């Protein structure tokens, strides 16, 4: 990617951050890493020149991002005097001796308009060559996001997958009788309340461009589907038919929502045209059909149905037709969510009295159970497919956790107070 392209991306995201959300009600989610990958890439990160004076130092955020992924091992970067900040200052033998395979160096320069230039380089220790290098111009408020962007570049260069550290998550916090729909950075920082209500809020879903959320609010004493802009805060009821309206899922092109309506009797899946407002019925059963989820290519919808006697996962072409049953193990399989590559899906499987996150390969039908909590719910893939965010319980409180899609890395995100539930991981910001 060109430097300009990246800067534009950064600038646009930053604008979104500033306008999108009110500064009210901040809650910090802290993340605890429970497990790690089997092979970890050794990387050394040297504190950037002039970083100590910043309102938000860069390298600690980069290091925390990479460590949290479970795929990196931080190599001690201390005790070198003077520390290297430019390529010609690097003594590769030192870093080889410390076992680092990659090295991150950089520098901060204050600009006359009060902003900062943040330069960083990712060096290959063995080849003694630069793998990546970017410069960013950021205000004080954008420094944390800049650090996440740097971590994204490093992650992508070294793993081949896009980094997701600069993405955002949404979830619902319940405190007493108050419900708050919040949006936070993927590391839990900078949580902002985008909707507060005395009535329940469930099923938030990100639009593919990350600028809108669809969700179900009970503010009118019944479930109604809303779409809210994170840029302007404007919201509108998009499905408010007689009966219940719920389970919104975006089509990959962002033009349609799959929703569950009961207006014709029973919970059935409909496609809602967001521009024209028309609805087309997608499923026809006398059973429960719910929790629709589009395949990334937009051609299929996975959903939960108990048409066979117990809740199982089915797949139907988006053009309609006969649904095909997809899950066969166990008596309770719900909440299907396609992986970003469309090859597998995460879902919730009941095992005895437990409800756990599992992944099933769509081609081989092989199932892997990834979690072991008592009540795990609402799985949501990171946009690079490497982690799955989900809701679980600890000490009778709802908390968020994440597990790598191979089950090896586990993280726990805890809020200061309240029940946290209904997480959804936002898309990569283009």
């Amino acid at each position, binding site marked *: 990617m060109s430097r300009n392209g990246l800067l534009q991306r950064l600038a646009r995201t930053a604008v979104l951050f500033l306008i999108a959300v009110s500064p009210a009600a901040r809650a910090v989610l802290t993340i605890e890493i429970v497990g790690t990958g089997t092979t970890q890439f050794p990387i050394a990160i040297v504190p950037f020149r002039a970083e100590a004076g910043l309102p938000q130092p860069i390298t600690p955020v980069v290091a925390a991002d990479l460590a949290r992924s479970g795929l990196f091992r931080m190599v001690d970067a201390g005790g070198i005097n003077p520390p290297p900040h430019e390529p010609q200052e690097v003594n590769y033998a030192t870093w080889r001796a410390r076992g680092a395979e990659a090295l991150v160096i950089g520098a901060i320069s204050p600009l006359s308009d009060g902003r900062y230039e943040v330069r960083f380089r990712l060096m290959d220790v063995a080849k003694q060559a630069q793998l990546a290098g970017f410069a960013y111009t950021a205000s004080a408020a954008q420094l944390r996001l800049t650090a996440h962007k740097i971590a994204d570049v490093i992650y992508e260069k070294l793993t081949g997958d896009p980094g997701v550290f600069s993405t955002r998550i949404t979830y619902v916090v319940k405190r007493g009788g108050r419900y708050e729909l919040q949006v936070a950075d993927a590391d839990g920082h900078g949580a902002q309340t985008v909707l507060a209500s005395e009535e329940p809020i469930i099923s938030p879903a990100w639009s593919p461009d990350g600028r809108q959320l669809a969700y179900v609010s009970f503010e009118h004493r019944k479930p109604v589907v809303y779409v809210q802009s994170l840029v302007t805060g404007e919201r509108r009821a998009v499905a408010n038919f007689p009966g219940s309206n719920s389970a919104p899922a975006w089509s990959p092109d962002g033009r349609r929502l799959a929703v569950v309506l009961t207006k014709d009797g029973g*919970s059935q899946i409909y496609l809602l045209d967001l521009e024209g407002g028309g609805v087309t019925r997608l499923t026809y059963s006398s059973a429960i059909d719910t929790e629709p989820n589009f395949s990334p290519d937009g051609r299929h919808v996975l959903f939960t149905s108990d048409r066979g006697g117990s809740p199982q996962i089915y797949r139907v072409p988006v053009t309609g037709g006969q649904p095909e049953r997809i899950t066969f193990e166990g008596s309770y399989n719900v909440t299907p969510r396609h992986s970003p590559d469309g090859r597998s899906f995460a879902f919730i499987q*009941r095992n005895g009295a437990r409800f756990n996150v599992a992944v099933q390969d769509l081609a081989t039908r092989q199932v892997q159970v990834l979690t072991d909590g008592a009540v795990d719910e609402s799985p949501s893939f990171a946009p690079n497919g490497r982690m799955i965010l989900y809701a679980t319980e600890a000490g009778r409180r709802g908390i968020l956790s994440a597990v790598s899609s191979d089950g090896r890395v586990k993280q726990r995100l805890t809020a200061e107070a309240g029940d946290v539930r209904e997480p959804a991981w936002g898309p990569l910001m283009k």
Partner: protein
Amino acid sequence: MRRLLISSALLVALAGCAAAPTKEQEGAAVEDRKPDVTVDRPPVKPAEKEKPAVAKPLADKPLAVNPLKDPANILSKRSIYFDFDSNLVKDEYKPIVTAHAQYLRQNPAARMRIEGHADERGSREYNLALGQRRADAVKQMMQLLGAQASQIETVSFGEEKPRCTQHEESCWWQNRRGDIVYQGE
């Protein structure tokens, strides 16, 4: 639009015959958490203070008690409970459903909402659908007993409005229910 008109007409009708607030049956108090819908006790005990008033001329308005709110009337019972993963209306709740169906039949302008609920186990959206199915089952029975489909809207709160919040069956059965709420209440 038509529904809105009907509902405001009903609101006026119900307001006309609404008695002083009395303590509601347990079943009707469910979702009312906001201060403005908290049920107040009457400031004085009517039974004692009413006696000297016998000599007074009768008020214009009849002192009829709203049958929907009268604790002695079966219509004040508003909750139908269900077994796990079931939407079958059990025999013990059929008299309640029958009484409300009859009320709807006798009061064609009356509108009600049946709110379905589920216990906390399983996915929120699937539980929302289970609650809906329970509400629909009650509606279907009322229709068979002569109520008009247009008088009843069924919605679901899923597991979001538990009446009891312990994580065990002694609690869960109270959350698998359908609640009857008349429009204007």
